[in-house]
């Protein structure tokens, strides 16, 4: 129980600029193990930039990102193992099969053969890709690729999962599978950081919400608190209300 309340991800005054444009302005968020955080906002609000800063894909001008109290600027391979990242567009090596790709990722993270086989077995059943995982990924549909990419981000059991638009292109069955997986993972005391435009997904899954607009975090907290504050029941209405007031 004590582990459950331990803060594992802290973002403090994060600022990211592209030339003269400020993509993320002074962002501060703190998340704990077990949180499913819904990061929502209009296009160009700075969601993907934030996620990429956390994943170590983008350098940032100022601020701090700490994982288990460790500064991300000193990210080592050990720190990288704590993060799993699912990009907004699923990119795989076309000439590898799904299984080979998962093997590749597992080995990058230093897993042994037995663990990789076990995890592949688990996720292939969980996400129902065992039928096609020995075919080359160039033959996959978008949804099939997305399932493999999600499995590849989860395979090394990271503490923090950064997921950018997970539901784009997924059919209803795949969406259900992914949602169930997210819920189960959150129960394992990990953090799920989900950037999405699908407000129903955030409403259904997330216990914490962050609303970004033009690089600024305009709300951060529990969904119910927000509903009580704005006096509206529907997240879509709340979202439109908040982003409208900041135009």
């Amino acid at each position, binding site marked *: 129980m004590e582990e459950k309340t331990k803060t594992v991800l802290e973002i403090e005054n994060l600022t990211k600029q592209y030339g003269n444009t400020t993509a993320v302005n002074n962002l501060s968020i703190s998340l704990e193990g077990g949180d499913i955080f819904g990061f929502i906002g209009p296009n160009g609000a700075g969601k993907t930039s934030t996620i990429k800063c956390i994943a170590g894909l983008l350098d940032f001008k100022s601020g701090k990102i700490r994982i288990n109290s460790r500064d991300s600027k000193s990210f080592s391979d050990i720190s990288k193992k704590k993060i799993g*990242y699912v990009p907004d567009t699923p990119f795989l090596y076309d000439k590898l099969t799904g299984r080979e*790709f998962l*093997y590749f990722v597992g080995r990058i993270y230093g897993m042994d053969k037995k663990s990789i086989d076990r995890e592949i077995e688990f996720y292939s059943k969980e996400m129902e890709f065992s039928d096609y995982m*020995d075919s080359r990924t160039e033959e996959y549909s978008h949804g099939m690729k997305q399932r493999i990419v999600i499995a*590849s981000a989860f395979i090394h059991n990271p503490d923090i999962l950064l997921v950018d638009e997970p539901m784009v292109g997924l059919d209803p069955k795949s969406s259900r599978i992914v949602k169930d997986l997210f819920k189960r993972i959150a129960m394992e005391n990990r953090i799920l950081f989900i950037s999405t435009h699908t407000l129903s997904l955030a409403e259904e899954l997330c216990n914490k919400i962050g609303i970004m607009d033009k690089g600024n975090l305009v709300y951060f907290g529990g969904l119910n608190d927000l509903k009580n504050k704005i006096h509206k029941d529907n997240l879509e209405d709340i979202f439109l209300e908040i982003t409208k007031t900041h135009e």
Partner: protein
Amino acid sequence: MNEIIIARLKTIFRSVIVRDFKSFVRLLSYIFVVSVFLYGNYFIFFKIFAFLIKSEPEIGYSISQRLTSIMFSTFFIMLFMSSIVTSITTFFRTPELEFLFTTPINPQKIFIVKLVENGVFASWATLMISLPLMFAIGNGFQFGFYFILRSVILFLAMVFIAVSFGLFVAFFFSEFFRKHSLGTVIAIVAVSAISILAILFFMKSPDIFNLPKNANLYEVDRFVASLEVEQFKYLPSGIVIDMIFNKHSEESFLMQIWLLLLYLVPTLAMTFVSMRFYKRKYVSYEKTVQKSLKHKNRMEFPTVFRQSKTALLIQKDMLVFLRDPSQWGQSATFLLLLIFYGISVVRSPIYFKSPFYTYILAFANLGFSTYIMATLSVRFIFPLISLEGRTFSLIKSSVNIRDYFNAKILFNFLMISVLGQILIVGTNAFLNLDRIVILVSMAVTFIVAVGITIINTGIGAMLADFTETNPSKIASGFGGIISAITSLVYIGICLGVLSNPTRTYFEYTFKKMEFNNMYFLYSILFVLLLTVIIFCIMYPLGVNSLKKRSL
């Protein structure tokens, strides 16, 4: 003419327009690089022709004509083959077509735009070499501006025939091509091209310098006379060459015009037929649906280097390379051409068996081998980091960039070094050279392989294009040109440094002049030092640019 061409022209105009200092520098760099390349080609050809006229005035003109003829015939076959491949992509597989065919634009207008595109894609590389060649002939022989203008027009006519003929073949066999992946098509076309070249090579046996050492005057006369006879006279390239050099009577010139028209008229008719049936062909050209194959897992743990991430990344790169037909198809083509080169060294004429020419050939062989290594590096090494594509975000978020860069360098070095050593040792062995020359060649090839690898990997990292998936397009882009020029300048310096002790060694061999083995050592040390300096500059530049790179 039509909306698509206007959109294309706008795109080109906007990509070259100077908006800020950065775009100005970029434009200037492009102009500089292309100018250097064109002038460099012109300079080399001009020197060759000027040398032939000056040193061999009796046969210089005939040899020039023969050289140009062989080049034009090769260009014609290459244009025809490359047009088949580019036609399939341009007319049937480009995603833009899905959009264009849903608009009210007349399909025949789409066809014309694609025909122009196809012509440019298939012929730009050939034009980059042949235009300086024609200017060099014109100026070398002082033929004047009219000659150059006529040559360019006739060459463009040859390009049109080759490209349109290739297009017609692509249309005619579209049913066959649609059932196969582009990789298979490229492989088929490559093998066909090599086979045709091989048949021509062995049947026609181009014997430009094939004069026996003990030839008598009669044989020399016969040889000189034979040089002026066009070997591929009924191919469009042969007709164009005859017309360019125009040494015939007015009657035969008219005959040549008729012959050219004999090609041009059916070509136009074939193009017209293709245009008429374009929409129908496109609609029936379904996306390739291939049977899904199950593959054995090749990313299993190897028995050695179990924990090495470098070994893992190399394993992945090799697997992706070997499964990509556009990579191995072109590798196979290059390899076959190298085998032809090896065979031609073995079959080098009796005249070249004298020790002096053997050493000349040995040095030329070193130059040519390192030049081939540089060319192959630009095509195969430079694009490798770009080919990581958006998956680079996975690499960057999980692997130390230095480890990743080291893996690329090691993989690239192994590829290019093994190839270089096989080439240099194999050909030198056939030339029966001294052990010392073979060892020097091997050492230089080894060091140059390191230099070329770091140049292409470093620039490949700095100018990586993660959005392009076609390795040929990556290699022929701005970064590829920069990489090619840097590699060639590096090789030029290395060979320049080595030429001095090589010359002294010849003098020692033939004139028994003083020679010190240390000359070779000093020059190799210089090449080594240059390579170390390049490594020390390129390595941090490559690593840091990848670290800073955002996707």
